């Protein structure tokens, strides 16, 4: 049993350890995955920033190149000096720009605007290309371009984001600024899709607390403006946010937001990079996210697991057999042998652990039974209950007759209980037929008269039956017989909590035997 217990403890410890790992390991793993996703978004944000910067330079180069066109320079110079018709200059500039850049949409351009040196619009190509003549001087990038700077900016007007780049237009002699050109690059859904394609993250663009473009559905990005607003101070100082979780239905996303540069920064214009957060670390979520592929033979160590389980069961069964079944079988065999061998005892040294204890207890029990006196050698275990004289009834017969205990209660009603006699014992006590005495000697002890008569009657029947069976009765005295019956009676009354015990004589295997019947 010791090894079985050790094995049980080991298996339980191992199972507990494995369960603990199974429950705790996903959490740090999920945190690590979340960190990695956050880092991926950080890198994507850096890449976006670089892309925007490179894009801005590209647009500046493009508009600067456009501004070097002689036709445009001449037209804008005339407009700045106020010579000629503005409408004519408008058409001239517009047609020239369209000739130089025939496919604005393909180039990702929303609008190109040409201005004279006073900041007055001479011509537009793209959006709102019919209007001209109004001044947009005062816009920082326009003022800069008219001073001679090439620069970029991001505008957020009319609910749209526009990345703009502006450059001065120099006179033919390249000695003065005669106007400016600015180009507005599309910064909406197309821009978001392009970013998503390049960076493999979802994008949302925010302007003045609204999502103006997104590659994700509205229910996912709907909470973004409020979330970003809560981190506004952080964005102003760090120019970005940490990875922020967004709950949308059953999915959780991580978002990193950064502000657009330029005057759009004053309009809460942000680009937000969004990635899906790894699955939750709790057991139901993990199980829910388990796919058939995860449980395939190639990805799950089924063989190792089955071998381990089979090994654990095999070792457990072996130890069970070795420490439990085997001693029990051996004890049963030995007990069977003991029944046929008088005076033998169980060899408790052969039995391990608790079975040795059981063997000792059984030996003690048998010794006790023997000390009480056997009523029948046939019923005593291993013959240990035989009377030392070989004639006295074994007390064990009383216990061996326990199977008849169901009848004694009914026996009180009258039906005969003693096999072989066919009738209840007579109430009167007859003297023994032969014991070499003249009359019935008084019984020792303080038995009631009725019981004393019963003992004498049983004694006479017992002696008679022994004679009938051809058994010797030498040494069988009423005193010894009565003493044994009293002892057995007392033991049985204690054991069965009965009022008294009645004995009867019967023949078993050609020998006289006694049967004890407790009377409630």
């Amino acid at each position: 049993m010791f090894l079985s217990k050790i094995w049980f403890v080991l298996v339980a410890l191992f199972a507990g350890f494995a369960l603990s790992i199974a429950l705790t390991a996903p959490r740090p793993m999920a945190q690590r995955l979340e960190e990695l996703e956050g880092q991926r978004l950080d890198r994507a944000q850096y890449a976006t920033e670089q892309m925007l910067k490179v894009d801005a330079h590209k647009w500046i180069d493009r508009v600067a190149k456009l501004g070097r066109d002689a036709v445009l320079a001449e037209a804008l110079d005339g407009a700045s000096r106020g010579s000629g018709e503005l409408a004519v200059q408008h058409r001239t500039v517009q047609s020239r720009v369209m000739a130089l850049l025939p496919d604005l949409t393909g180039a990702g351009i929303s609008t190109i605007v040409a201005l004279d040196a006073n900041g007055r619009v001479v011509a537009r190509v793209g959006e709102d290309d019919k209007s001209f003549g109004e001044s947009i001087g005062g816009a920082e990038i326009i003022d800069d371009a008219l001073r001679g700077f090439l620069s970029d900016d991001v505008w957020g007007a009319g609910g749209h984001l526009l990345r703009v780049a502006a450059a001065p237009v120099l006179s033919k002699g390249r000695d003065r600024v005669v106007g400016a050109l600015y180009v507005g690059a599309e910064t909406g859904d197309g821009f978001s899709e392009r970013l998503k394609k390049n960076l493999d993250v979802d994008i949302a663009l925010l302007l003045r607390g609204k999502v103006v473009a997104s590659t994700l559905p509205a229910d996912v990005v709907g909470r973004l403006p409020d979330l970003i607003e809560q981190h506004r101070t952080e964005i102003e100082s760090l120019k970005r946010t940490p990875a922020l979780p967004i709950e949308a239905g059953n999915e959780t996303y991580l978002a990193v937001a950064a502000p657009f540069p330029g005057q759009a920064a004053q309009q809460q214009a942000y680009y937000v990079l969004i990635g899906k957060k790894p699955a939750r670390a709790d057991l139901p979520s993990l199980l829910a996210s388990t796919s058939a592929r995860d449980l395939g033979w190639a990805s799950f160590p089924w063989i190792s697991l089955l071998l381990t389980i089979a090994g654990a069961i095999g070792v457990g069964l072996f130890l069970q057999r070795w420490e439990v079944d085997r001693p029990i079988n051996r004890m049963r065999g030995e007990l069977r042998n003991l029944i046929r061998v008088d005076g033998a005892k169980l060899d408790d040294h052969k039995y391990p652990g608790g079975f040795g204890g059981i063997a000792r207890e059984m030996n003690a029990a048998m010794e006790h039974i023997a000390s009480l006196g056997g009523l029948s050698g046939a019923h005593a275990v291993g013959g240990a209950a035989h009377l030392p004289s070989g004639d006295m009834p074994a007390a064990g017969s009383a216990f061996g007759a326990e199977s008849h205990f169901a009848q004694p209660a009914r026996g009180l009603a009258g039906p005969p209980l003693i096999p072989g006699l066919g009738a209840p014992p007579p109430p009167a006590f007859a003297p023994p037929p032969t014991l070499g005495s003249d009359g019935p000697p008084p019984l020792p002890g303080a038995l009631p008269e009725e019981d004393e008569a019963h003992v004498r009657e049983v004694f006479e029947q017992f002696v008679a039956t022994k004679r009938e069976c051809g058994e010797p009765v030498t040494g069988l005295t009423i005193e010894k017989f009565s003493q044994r019956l009293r002892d057995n009676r007392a033991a049985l009354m204690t054991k069965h909590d009965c009022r008294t015990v009645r004995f009867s004589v019967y023949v078993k295997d050609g020998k006289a035997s006694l049967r004890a019947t407790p009377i409630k």
Partner: protein
Amino acid sequence: MTTPKLSRRLAPLPALLALALPAVPAPTWAGTVHGTVRVPDAIRSGRMNQGYWRLENGNVPVRPSTRKPGTVVVLEGISGTHPPPPKTVSVEISALNASPRFVVVGPGSVVEFKNTGKITHELSIPADPTLMPIERLNAGTFRHQKFGVPGGYLVRCAEYPSVAISVIVVDSPFFAIVDDKGGFSIPGVPDTKATLKVWAGGRWAHQETVDTSGKQDLAIRVQAAKGAKEADVKDAEGKEGDDSKDPDSKGSAE
């Protein structure tokens, strides 16, 4: 007859005057507080909102900005002075230009924002939207806004943030608008200790306690706003624009 009597009566007067004079506080002499304010390049360049790039064209020298930086120095905490009286000041917004771009007024003054251009604006004070909530200002319309509490307010257009007007409400007559070279001068300041505050770049950018009795030039260096993006290329007018003198170095800019 009367002269000797009068002489006798007036004889104790000098002594009484001599006793009474120490009880009256001695008059403090007013002086001029002057100095220079050096603001960050982003403010001097005239471009508050930078993009990624700002490059010179390489052919023509870059012209200085005509836009005034709008730096104001205010002395506060001088007892016994009265704030400027309230008045109504008009600010015209034409296209994407506001004129003037900053005003200094006393408490209770009203600023009238007139949209004389064709573009609709949405003016508000983003830092204090309860005082001046966002409201559309269509072309040809105006909006009145009263400023009762001393302080600095930046009124900005939500659609075109380059349209920004600084309203500085002072409760002291001692203030000056910094000239293009960064110099300022506040005359008539009593000798005392006062708090000097500098409004630059649409915010209170500097504050220090000064002793106005000192005659030395104050040299004030304004730090860039936290997180502010510096221009990749400094403005050619690194000396605050030498060619655009501002004769009005004191008083409101209206």
